[in-house]
């Protein structure tokens, strides 16, 4: 159990000082996701305009991994086109589900590469993915709304 590979400095930094925290206006969709196993929760809003992720704001309760992951995610996605953001999402998902066998791509994931170690702790993968799943859900809802 290499604890330090799980709790990278970057993760602990984001945990103590989360980026983009809080719920902000404007937003097109707000979702609430929970991890039923442990009760970690996130309320998350997305603001998408002209195909660009203008803002991702959130109110989250959870462990260091889930909190840091949310913070890193907002750094990565805000300002990107929705398409690019979806690609990053997919890359992060693959890293997390890779059981520690996937080599993280720093160009795409930046601070997110710190989560490579989490993939070796199956029980924590859900923590790392909580807000990413919420973001995907919210974005899908906002795009649906746009279409309607």
């Amino acid at each position, binding site marked *: *159990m290499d604890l330090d590979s799980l709790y990278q400095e970057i993760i602990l930094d984001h945990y103590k000082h989360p980026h983009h925290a809080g719920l902000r206006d404007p937003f097109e969709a707000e979702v609430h996701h*929970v991890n*039923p*196993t*442990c*009760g970690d*929760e996130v309320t998350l809003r997305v603001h998408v305009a002209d195909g660009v992720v203008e803002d991702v704001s959130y109110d989250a309760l959870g462990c260091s991994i889930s909190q840091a992951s949310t913070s890193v995610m907002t750094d990565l996605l805000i300002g990107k086109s929705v398409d690019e953001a979806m690609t990053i999402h997919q890359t992060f998902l693959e890293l997390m589900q890779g059981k520690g066998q996937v080599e993280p791509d720093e160009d795409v994931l930046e601070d997110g590469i710190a989560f490579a170690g989490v993939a070796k702790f*199956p*029980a*924590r993968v859900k923590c790392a993915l909580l807000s990413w799943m919420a973001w995907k859900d919210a974005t899908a809802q906002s795009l649906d709304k746009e279409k309607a």
Partner: protein
Amino acid sequence: MIEGLLPELEVIRKDFPILERTLAGGYPLVYLDSANTSQKPQVVIDTMVDHLERHNANVARAMHQLGAEASEAFEAGRDKVAAFIKAPSRDEVIFTKNASEALNLVANTLAWRGDLQVGEGDEVVITEMEHHSNIVPWQLLTERTGATLRWFGLTDDGRLDLSNIDELITERTKVVSLTWVSNMLGTINPVREIADRAHQVGAIVVVDASQAAPQLPVDVVASGADVLVFTGHKVVGPTGIGVLWGRREVLEQLPPFLGGGEMIETVRMERSTYAGIPHKFEAGTPPIVEAVGLGAAVDYLDHVGMDAIHAHEQAITAYALEGLQTVPGLTVMGPLDAASRGGAISFEIAGVHPHDVAQVLDSRGIAVRAGHHCAKPAHARFGVQSSTRMSSYLYTTPAEIDALVEGLHHTRSYFKLDA
């Protein structure tokens, strides 16, 4: 040499420790009651022991190493079962306590508000050859909701009488629930054909595969079922576990059954929301070591090969049908050609009550079942109150069938039937 028998039958028998048992009077065990419950191979027992001695912890909720090991072993059981029945998604595989709970889960939840709710004016169709576990839940549902229960009758040779299918399956039909293989008559039913008809009227189709899963290769999608159930202890697995497979869409439409434990998303005193499938239907601590054992069991069956097991059952059944015909006054109930039936054969012997037949056989180490086999209506249909049933499995040998037939001749002479 009988064609179709498993080539390594003696090796397979060695996998089942109980087959070494001798019984009162020094008789070796001749176990012909596998439709009631199957015996367990050593690998299933050993896998369960290893789990209990080294990896035991609660699942899902535990974040420690033992918890991760237990969760992985438990969920691997789900993966193996999903593969065994060719489920499109592992999440569609729900663990219950037995087949009966699985059938009740569906029947019970259909009474409650939801897209599939059954109410007055609606009809549920079953058949006269069902096991009680596929009759009583539907009686409870229809009695409690004011719906109507209807059923297919049987032909004299023990098949479903489909002549009035268009009167039975109508726009009012909400559910058609039937057994794939009868545990009494042995009949293999044309499940797909009936399912197609039921789907035309928008009914959901529930298939009781309790006797099919041990004997036939199962492909849930090809079967036409919306829901299919079977039970662990009949597929060389442990008691305490059953399987409910359902199409995602159907499972998502059903309201929750048992509440509590990990079936929730969030709980407040005022109201709760529920987890997605499969957890929505798995309240409380699941059958953990049982799922681990069941995983080993279906692996074992897959390793031998379900096609090979099916061929073996048919060969033994054909051999048994032949042997039984040599016993004067013996009448087999159900189809007489082995190809259209499973490995359970119920019969009567004129002049000896089934209990007495079973008793005499038991005194020679031969275990069969006597009674109504939880299929009273099917017995009533044939004007009998009970019968004797022999049922074979992958470990059954022709020599055991010989012992049975000889035992039946002996039974007749014991009761002086020719005197």
